[in-house]
C-alpha cells in the first residue's frame, strides 16, 4: 500500500467539493476510464473573474481524489489570472507530497484546470497536438516534453510517474528516452552561455555523481573529481578503474564524452596520478 501524507488521507477520506455543479460556467474534463483516471472540474466564475465555487468529479485512486479535492480548495476565491498560475507541483505541495508513482494525479488536476479556463474564455480547448508516443495511455510527445521541462525529469520511470506514458507494455520506452535526451540537451544550450566557473564545477560534480559514477561502480571502479582548471577536468580513478589498462579509454570515450554532452562541449578530461 502507498505511503500517503496526512493531508492526502484527509482529502481522500473527506473530499471537499465532490459532486456535480449544475450552473458551472467553466468545465474541464480530462482522462478516461481506460487510463484508470479521469477528472471533471467545474467552476463558477463571477463577473469579476473570481472563482466563487469549484467542484469536481473523479474516477481514480486515493491520490486522484485527494488531488482533485485539494485543487478545488486552492481555486476557491482566486481570480482567473491567479488560477492560471497553479502548477501540478503546487497541488503536490498543498497535499504535503504525493508518492512518486502518483505524480500523474496532480498533472491530471493541472490539465483539467487548463481545460476549464479555456472553456470559461470560450476558447476551444487546445487540441492535444503532437504525436502519440505511448499507445497504452494515449500520451503525446508534447505532453512528455512538457512534463520533463516543468519537473526536470531525467528517467523513463519519472516520465511514467508524471504522465503515465511507458507504464503499460513498455513499447514506447526507447522513444521516451530519446525525448528526454533531446529536451535535456536543449536545456543545456540555453544555459551554456551563462555558465560561470562555479556552475561548471557543480554541473561536473552532479554529472559524475548521477551519470558516470553508477556505471563505473557497476564494473567495480570509481572516479574522483580532483580539480577543474579552465576546461581541464582533473580526475583520479579508483577501484578496478585504477588498475585497468583500458581506463584511459574509459576516461576519453565515456567520462569525457558524457561531460561534454551534459556540461560543456570543450571539456577535456585528464587523469592525475598521485
Amino acid at each position, binding site marked *: *500500500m*502507498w505511503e500517503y501524507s496526512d493531508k492526502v488521507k484527509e482529502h*481522500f*477520506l473527506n*473530499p471537499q467539493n*465532490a*459532486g456535480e455543479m449544475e450552473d458551472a460556467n467553466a468545465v474541464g*474534463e480530462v482522462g*478516461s*476510464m*481506460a*487510463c*484508470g*483516471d*479521469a*477528472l*471533471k472540474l467545474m467552476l463558477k466564475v463571477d463577473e469579476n473573474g473570481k472563482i466563487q465555487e469549484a467542484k*469536481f*468529479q*473523479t*474516477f*481514480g*485512486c*486515493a491520490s*486522484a*481524489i485527494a488531488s482533485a479535492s485539494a485543487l478545488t480548495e486552492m481555486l476557491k476565491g482566486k481570480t482567473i489570472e491567479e488560477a492560471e498560475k497553479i502548477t501540478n507541483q503546487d497541488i503536490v505541495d498543498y497535499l504535503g507530497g504525493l508518492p512518486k*508513482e*502518483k505524480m500523474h494525479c496532480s498533472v491530471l488536476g493541472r490539465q483539467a484546470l487548463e481545460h476549464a479556463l479555456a472553456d470559461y474564455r470560450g476558447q476551444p480547448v487546445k487540441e492535444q497536438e503532437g504525436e502519440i508516443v505511448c499507445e*497504452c*495511455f494515449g500520451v503525446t510527445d508534447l505532453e512528455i516534453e512538457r512534463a520533463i521541462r516543468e519537473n526536470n525529469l531525467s528517467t523513463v520511470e519519472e516520465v*511514467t510517474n508524471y504522465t*503515465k506514458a511507458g*507504464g*503499460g507494455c513498455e513499447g514506447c520506452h526507447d522513444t521516451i528516452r530519446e525525448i528526454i535526451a533531446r529536451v535535456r540537451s536543449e536545456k543545456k544550450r540555453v544555459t551554456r552561455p551563462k555558465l560561470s566557473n562555479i556552475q561548471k564545477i557543480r554541473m561536473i560534480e552532479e554529472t559524475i555523481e548521477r551519470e558516470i559514477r553508477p556505471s563505473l561502480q557497476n564494473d567495480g571502479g570509481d572516479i574522483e573529481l580532483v580539480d577543474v582548471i579552465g576546461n581541464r577536468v582533473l580526475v583520479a580513478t579508483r577501484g578496478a578503474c585504477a588498475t585497468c589498462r583500458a581506463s584511459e579509454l574509459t576516461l576519453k570515450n565515456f567520462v569525457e564524452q558524457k561531460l561534454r554532452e551534459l556540461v560543456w562541449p570543450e571539456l577535456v578530461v585528464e587523469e592525475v596520478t598521485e
Partner: protein
Amino acid sequence: MRTIYLDNNATTQVSPEVLEAMLPYFNEYYGNPSSAHTFGGQVAAKLRKAREQVADLLGARPEEIIFTSCGSESDNTAILSALRTEKEKRHIVTSRVEHPAVRSLCHYLEKQGYKVTEIPVDREGRLDMDQYRVSLTRDTALVTLMWANNETGVIFPVEEAARMAKERKILFHTDAVQAVGKIPIDLSNSAIDMLSISGHKLHAPKGIGVLYVRTGTRFSPFLIGGHQERGRRGGTENTAGIIGLGKACEMAAENMEKENTRVKALRDKLETGILSLVPNTRVNGAGAERLPNTSNISFEFVEGEAILLLMDEHGICASSGSACTSGSLQPSHVLRAMGVPFTMAHGSIRFSLSIYNTEEEIDFVLEKVPPIIEKLRSYSPFWKPEGQACASGT
C-alpha cells in the same frame, strides 16, 4: 479495530496447531538433520514424518517431495530443470494468466532465445484447450500451467492438459500454489511431472515450499550445495518450516471436505450479497470452475485502490487487481487476458477466504462495502445516480 482478513490468497495465518508443532524445533531440538549424532537424528526423523504428511496430501511418494524455500523457487527450479534436461528443445508452453514466478521467468527465457507460447483464456478465465492442443510441438520442452488462478480462483484442467503433453513426451509442470489444500489433488495416477507448493498459502509459515518431482523424471537441481534433498536442493533444511508444513498438510487433508463446504458457503454468501446490494458489479470467472474460497468482484466506475483504502478504514483486508495498487498502471494481466472491460477491471477487488473466517465477518463486510461503493460512485463522472452508467467513459 478488529481485522477482517479476506486476503488469504496473498498469505494465510499460521494455524495454532502448526505453530505449536514448529516451536520446539527453534530451540529445544535445534540439531542439524544431516549430523551423525542422535541429537540431529531426531530432527531428521521429524523431517521424514513431514515429508510423508506432504506426500499424503498430494497422493505422492515421500521421495518425490523436495523441500524448497517458496513457491517461486519451486516454479523456477521446475522450469529451469526441464530446459536443462531437454537441451535440444527450445519451446515453452504456458498461459497468459500465470503468476509472476512463472510469467517473469518465461519472459526472461524468451529474451534468452527460447520460444514461449502463452495460451489465451476466455472471458471466464478458462484455458483455450484448442489453442493449447495445437501449441504442443516436437520442439516443446515443457508445459507450465497453473492449477488455479490466484486472482480469480479459476481452475485449469491440468490433468487433461498433462495427459496431452505426456502423449507427446513433453514435460508438464503445474504451479499448484493456490490449489493445494483447497481442492483434492491426487498425483498417484496422474500425468503431471512436477508441481509447486507454497507453505504460507495453506496455514504454514512463509519461507517454505515444495517441488514435487515424479519418480523417473529427469531432474537438474537449481540450488547446488550439500547432499540435502538427495542432492536435488542443496542448503540446510528449514527444519521448523518443514515440520510446520507437514502439520499444515496433515490438517488440510483431514479438514478439506468439511472446511471447503463451509468456506464456499461463506464465499457464496459474500458474493450474492454484494451482487444484490450493489448494482453494476460482476464476478470475474463466475462461469468457470473455481476455488471455493476466492471471489474476484468488479465494481463498475470506481477505482480499486480507493475501495481498498476505504475498506481498510473498517479493518477489512482484501486486494485489488487494479493498476494503482500494483505500482504498474495497467489493470491486472489476468483480468486483461480475460477481456474484462476497463470500466470493470480498474475497480476489481479480490476477496479470498480461509477456514478462519466467520459468518459474522461476512455480515460485517456486507454492511460496510455497499456504502463505500456508493460514496465513491457519487464522485465518479461516469456514474449516474439513477444507476444508469454513462457510456462516455468506456
